């Protein structure tokens, strides 16, 4: 990869341990402490969309301005990402990975 900054060791362990503890507390919350208490409906409704709210926002800059091309838009990566999205929507996890990587390699072979 071109010019990827290395992750600081201290920061890595801080994040990993804090994330581990935080994730554990989320998992433990109701089962361990809150018992059968019911979450309010408005909160449950918002939680349902966390995944589709965070992940596309995270992935968009990676597709539009890839680090591997020093931030230059790359039509091949864009096309492969759209193919992956379609494959994932239609056929599920495995096909996203297969079609995403496969189509990028095919496109790079054909046009690169």
């Amino acid at each position, binding site marked *: 990869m071109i010019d990827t900054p290395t992750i600081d060791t201290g920061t890595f362990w801080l994040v990993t341990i804090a994330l581990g503890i935080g994730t554990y507390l989320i998992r433990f919350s109701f089962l361990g402490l809150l018992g059968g208490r019911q979450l309010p409906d408005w909160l449950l409704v918002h939680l349902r969309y*966390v995944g*589709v709210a965070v992940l596309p926002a995270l992935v968009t800059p990676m597709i539009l301005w890839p680090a591997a091309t020093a931030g230059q838009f790359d039509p091949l990566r864009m096309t492969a990402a759209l193919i992956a999205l379609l494959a994932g929507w239609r056929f599920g996890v495995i096909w996203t990975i297969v079609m995403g990587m496969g189509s990028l390699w095919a496109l790079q072979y054909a046009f690169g």
Partner: protein
Amino acid sequence: MKLVSNPRAYWQGLRDCAPFVVIVVPFSAMFGMVATDAGLNILQVVAMSAIVIAGSAQFTALSLLQDEAPVFVVLLASLAVNMRMAMYSAALVPHIGAASMRMRMLMAYVMVDQTFAVSVRTFDAAPQMSLNEKISYYFGCVTIVCVPWYVCTYLGAVLGQLIPTSLSPDFAVPVCFIAIFAPMLRSLPHIVAAGVSIVAAVVFSGVPWNFGLIIAATLAMMAGAQVEFWQRRRAARAEGAR
């Protein structure tokens, strides 16, 4: 209380979760590969998988760390991704809430999407199952999902170093994220939320410390919820008109 007091239920859980191995293996191997590529050593990669055991949050944290985002943004975004597990935790209470505290502490640690989904589906369908059978079943699910998760993270980390740059291993990161959210786009609110997320990510991309991500995610979550509320109101009106 023993982890496996009922071997029959244990094996049934293991068998019922076995199909997910096809997803867990490439996914954890990808994580191992991508994390090594990002400059982490094998101990760090495996430790992260063992401490966090949550693929999407691990990928999220990793890519934000690489972007040199501030620690609180990294944690906020990755914990938000894991908030869904609060729902899993709540949904498991009626089934295994009566287990001992030590048992519940252990069961919380290995609570992941697949073990949760399969065991709750089974418990709902078989209310006659005893607490011990349910616990054994749960750990059957855990064995077949979590053990490959650790092992394949390690294998991915070791073998990933052999992959040449010409194969664009960097692209595996967005592909993994797409693999997580694309199958979720099953209803209008989910699609709207994802659309808002993408547009807002571009609009707020200039906001410092990757805070644009938090803004985009919040807006998208609200958009999804509002569409769902709107759908409910519409359904209620249709019901009233009848």
